[in-house]
């Protein structure tokens, strides 16, 4: 019954909230990008603050990640970079949940940039919903965001301010069933704040529903630590689908990923180095090849993550 209520509430929110505006939702988190951005129902690392804040509640270690990228390489005259910093801190007592801080940015030097600062909190909801965690682990979270867009106007528009900021937030829910299926829902930019310089320009509310399946060893195919995920993303009345795959080989050290969406195809890998007691260094790389933009050598993303107690 409660599940029905939750799903109903989610669907109602999706119908009610619709707006248009800036702030893309595509280029952060190297692991997530390697999976084509289908990460809403996976969301179990420091990329969670951007994809589904509810996922940070499942962190068992502190984690910090840094990402740098260069988009649409090979195109002379195009210089776009996306950067990300994320940090998750699980509370000592699991009942208190976890907090996160993140910063994401996409910029074109001398033209325009978008920055998003996130502060998030999530915890498991089984006690509130009175659902056995052995059957399904349910987490929920909220993210407070500060958005800033900066534009370098020329003399014709020198009467305008060069930057515009606004506060908004995300909510997220993640349900991980014991049979390997996970369902995720994330509602981003929930208040659709106005960041227009001249006219009203509301940041688009984004609704994402994700579903994924994980298996330690896929029967028949014998693929280890395998995840298949898909996200259905709704923004500005348009719906797009993201699909991703991930597997870990070499005793779970090397991750191989693939994914895509309508406009691009993604490939990625990651390698985990373990130091001492539970200290891990993870290096991730993702390549995105746009389908429509011509003559580009793709977008390249490199990430460095630490997990420690």
């Amino acid at each position, binding site marked *: 019954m409660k599940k029905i209520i939750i799903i109903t509430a989610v669907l109602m929110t999706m119908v009610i909230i619709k707006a248009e505006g800036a702030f893309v939702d595509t280029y952060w988190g190297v692991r997530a990008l390697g999976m084509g951005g289908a990460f809403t129902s996976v969301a179990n690392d420091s990329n969670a603050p951007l994809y589904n804040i509810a996922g940070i509640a499942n962190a068992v270690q502190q984690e910090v990640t840094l990402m740098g990228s260069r988009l649409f390489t090979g195109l002379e005259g195009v210089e776009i970079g996306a950067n990300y910093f994320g940090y998750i801190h699980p509370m000592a007592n699991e009942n208190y949940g976890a907090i996160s801080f993140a910063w994401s940015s996409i910029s074109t030097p001398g033209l325009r940039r978008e920055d998003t600062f996130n502060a998030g909190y999530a915890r498991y909801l089984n006690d509130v919903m009175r659902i056995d965690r052995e059957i399904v682990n349910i987490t929920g979270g909220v993210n407070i965001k500060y958005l800033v867009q900066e534009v370098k106007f020329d003399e014709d*528009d020198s009467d305008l301010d060069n930057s515009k900021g606004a506060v908004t937030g995300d909510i997220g829910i993640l349900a991980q069933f014991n049979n390997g299926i996970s369902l995720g829902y994330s509602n981003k930019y929930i208040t659709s704040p106005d960041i227009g310089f001249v006219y009203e320009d509301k940041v688009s509310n984004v609704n994402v529903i994700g579903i994924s399946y994980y298996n330690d060893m896929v029967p028949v195919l014998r693929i280890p630590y395998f995840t298949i995920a898909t996200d259905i993303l709704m923004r500005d009345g348009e719906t797009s689908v993201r699909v991703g795959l991930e597997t870990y080989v070499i005793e779970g050290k090397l991750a191989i990923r693939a994914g895509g969406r309508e406009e691009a195809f993604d490939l990625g890998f990651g390698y985990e180095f373990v130091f001492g007691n539970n200290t891990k260094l993870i290096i991730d790389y993702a390549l995105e090849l746009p389908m*429509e933009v011509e003559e580009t050598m793709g977008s390249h993303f490199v990430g460095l993550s630490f997990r420690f107690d």
Partner: protein
Amino acid sequence: MLKLKMNRKQIFLSILLVFSVLLASPVYMFGAQQIVKVVSAAASFPVARIIHDEITTVSSIRRILEAKISVDFGGYTSATAKINYYLNGSSESILVKDKGAVQDQEEFYISLPKFDSGDAKVDYQIQITFKDAYDNTSYLYWPSSSTYQTADIVSYSSGVVTAGSGGTIRFESGNQQYGNTEIVFSSGTFTTDQTITITELSVPSLSPSYSGSVSGTSRMVALYSIMPLWAPALTIPARATFYYGTETTATKFDLMRRDSETDTWEKISDITIDLSSKTISTYITKAGYYAIYTSSNLSDNDYRPAKRVVVQGRAVFKFNNLSEGDSVKIYNINGKRIREIKSGDSEGFKWDGRKNNGSYAESGTYIYQIKVKDKGKLISGTIAFVK
């Protein structure tokens, strides 16, 4: 001396009578506003007028008549301007301006649809319909309500240059927004009077040996002949101005002269390009064929928009030096193509921030890719559209 003796009752009745007469007057009964109106109109009745220099010829190659018109609205509050024209006996009319709260004086251009190649002349008449604050309508015509101005659609212009005082031979394009083709000869240029003819030739219809590209990346956009050939070369160079038309959005050009002896095109190095009048000027010493080519020496930046940030409704992105067959594709930051532009106007290929479906794009950074047909490569860059 007439003495009126009235008692109080008579005085009261007299005053009452005067008021009764005044109250019975239709002016006061029904027409207080009308009186104000009539007095006001009589005191400052709008004196409107049309100022326009007649167009006598239109280039048969360009086939565009664009008239420069200045209207003194004389206090009228709204006006509609239109042009009536006869083309091959059939009457047409085109509404060019319809506005309220007009300025006292305004200058604007009226452009007729491009004529068919078979048309020999066009008769046109400018008509302004005024309305004042009380919705009274009046009309004003140029040249008059019953006459039309005739503009012949021609390909050449001839004139005599005298030995003593020189002269100017002008071939009028028919487009008053831009320039004309003309040659100014100083006194003493010729020892005897000369009849000089400027002819504008159709680029594609010219003999193949004269048409086509000088190099792989340039295009001929205008071609003129100046005849007859004279020899030897002028010792006093003549100032020549060539109009290249509105069909190209190029900003860099080469002016070439056909050498009749070697049968090759020679580039004239010292030229002045006036983008506002769409003309190229130089000094010439020889007659013959003169052609304007889009420059083969364009850098990528010559195609890129100079304005990289556009606020919705305030400006547009202008991609330069593009012609038919070229295209501009706009992608959002996700790499999704949202707009493709395949044509432009005299100011270039433009993007106002709208997507293919007509709605405005979201604020953001966008990637453009310009495909120049003759260049064989893509020119990419980034722009920002915000609201």
